């Protein structure tokens, strides 16, 4: 369970929000500038809330007394452009997060993770040569190989073309259901709603409305929520 209650001022934006994500997928939607990226940075520990509390499975990641550094938060993160390390091959990218193990074991584990995710063929490829879908798969494998306690995905399909998006949404949904981790997906694309169990719509730094897609569609609290809920499709 990921519990978030944070406030932060960034420029003119006053971010103040409360969220909790159990073993489910929450889609955080909202227009540009709503504070979605800031929320991710606060959760990841690369930006500091002005006040509040972040806890993961009962462990405090941030409050008035403690601020766990990013490297110890055990959050899996897949950024928008996937941020694969261009100087490493597929295996090297996955093995990066397994530091602390002897080299041989690290590589064996990374290979096992690639196999488990159906990405063994990417092990010895330069990441620059991979397709958008392959990059996403590799970035997800790299995040999961560290056995995180929650998963954060930033606009997972923004850098893909529409046919790849359709195909990969299905596969990502299956992965999320299989892993059953608290997962938070940030997106401004209504079609990503099909990935989520619940949707939280952010506007101007706050959660404007939260609920299932049907709930949002039935009683939208703002024009953006209405537009978002209507544009989201019914099935995968």
């Amino acid at each position, binding site marked *: 369970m990921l519990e978030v209650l944070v406030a932060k001022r960034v420029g003119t934006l006053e971010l103040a929000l409360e969220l909790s994500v159990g073993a489910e997928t929450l889609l955080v939607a909202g227009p540009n500038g709503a504070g979605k990226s800031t929320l991710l*940075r606060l959760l*990841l*520990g*690369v930006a500091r809330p002005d006040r509040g509390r972040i806890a993961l499975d009962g462990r405090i990641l941030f409050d008035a007394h403690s601020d766990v*550094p*990013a*490297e*110890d*938060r055990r*959050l*899996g*993160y897949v*950024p*928008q*452009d996937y*941020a694969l*390390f*261009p*100087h490493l091959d597929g295996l090297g990218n996955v093995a*990066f*997060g397994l*530091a*602390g193990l002897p080299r041989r074991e690290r590589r064996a584990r990374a290979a096992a993770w690639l196999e488990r995710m159906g990405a063994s063929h990417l092990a010895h490829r330069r990441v620059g040569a991979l397709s958008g879908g392959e990059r996403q798969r590799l970035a997800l494998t*790299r*995040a999961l190989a*560290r056995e*995180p306690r929650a998963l954060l995905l930033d606009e997972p399909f923004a850098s893909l073309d529409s046919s790849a998006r359709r195909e990969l949404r299905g596969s990502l949904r299956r992965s999320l259901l299989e892993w059953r981790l608290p997962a938070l997906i940030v997106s401004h694309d209504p079609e990503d709603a099909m990935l989520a169990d619940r949707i939280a719509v952010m506007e101007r730094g706050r959660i404007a409305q939260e609920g299932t897609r049907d709930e949002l569609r039935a009683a939208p609290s703002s024009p953006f929520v209405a537009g978002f809920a209507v544009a989201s499709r019914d099935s995968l």
Partner: protein
Amino acid sequence: MSSRSWSAVQHSATILLVSFLVLPVAALALTLSWNDLLAGARHPLLLPALRLSLTTSTSSLTLVVVLGSLVAWWVARHRGRLSRFVESVTQLPAVIPPAVAGVGLLLAFGRRGLLGSFLARQGLSLAFSTPAVVLAETFVSAPFFIQAAIAAFRRVDENLLTVARTLGASPFRSFLRVALPLSAPALVGGAAMSWARSLGEFGATLLFAGNLTGRTQTLPLAVYTAMESDLRAAQALALIMVAVAFAMLLVLRRVSREADDA
């Protein structure tokens, strides 16, 4: 201007400038006989100066690369007045004439200098010693590496560093395992420029370290000294210095290319 005359202007400018840049180096080689070159190679000043130049320029390069990388990383990752100020300060030696740098170094680290007088009381005298050569070379060559390193580090995608952190890497390990390898080609390029500047350093060294054979007389100073008595010997030394610099640059370029391919 018509497109034909525009390209004629470009071609003429290229021919003019390239000839001007090549001619002095060509003159060094073309106006020297094999016998003169061999005599130069046996010149008593050559070996001590060559040895000193290689050891001092390698030492200053090590200082510049280790300290410069850390400074450049800090500057590249921070925005604000202080980092802009630090960046300007690191560029300062590039615009100071080397002779002025030499006077400054003497006034700072000389026996009666700002810091030098304190060091002298501890029994440490820097001026006119081999370490003074290293300091002079470090002073004049640091901007070349630091500027390249800042530019390279600024190009490192913040997202990669964030991901590295979420994968368990401390900020130091992210720097070591992500930023450094990604910037390696540019860092090697900057190191090559810095090293070349260091090898050619003359004015600051002469004023701050002097011209003592075997202790502070580097290759450029040996060329200068030989020139007073024997132009041919100076020319032979100069040519050998060009060859050393050229060989080193080839090696560095090769390393840079390998880092790029890795």
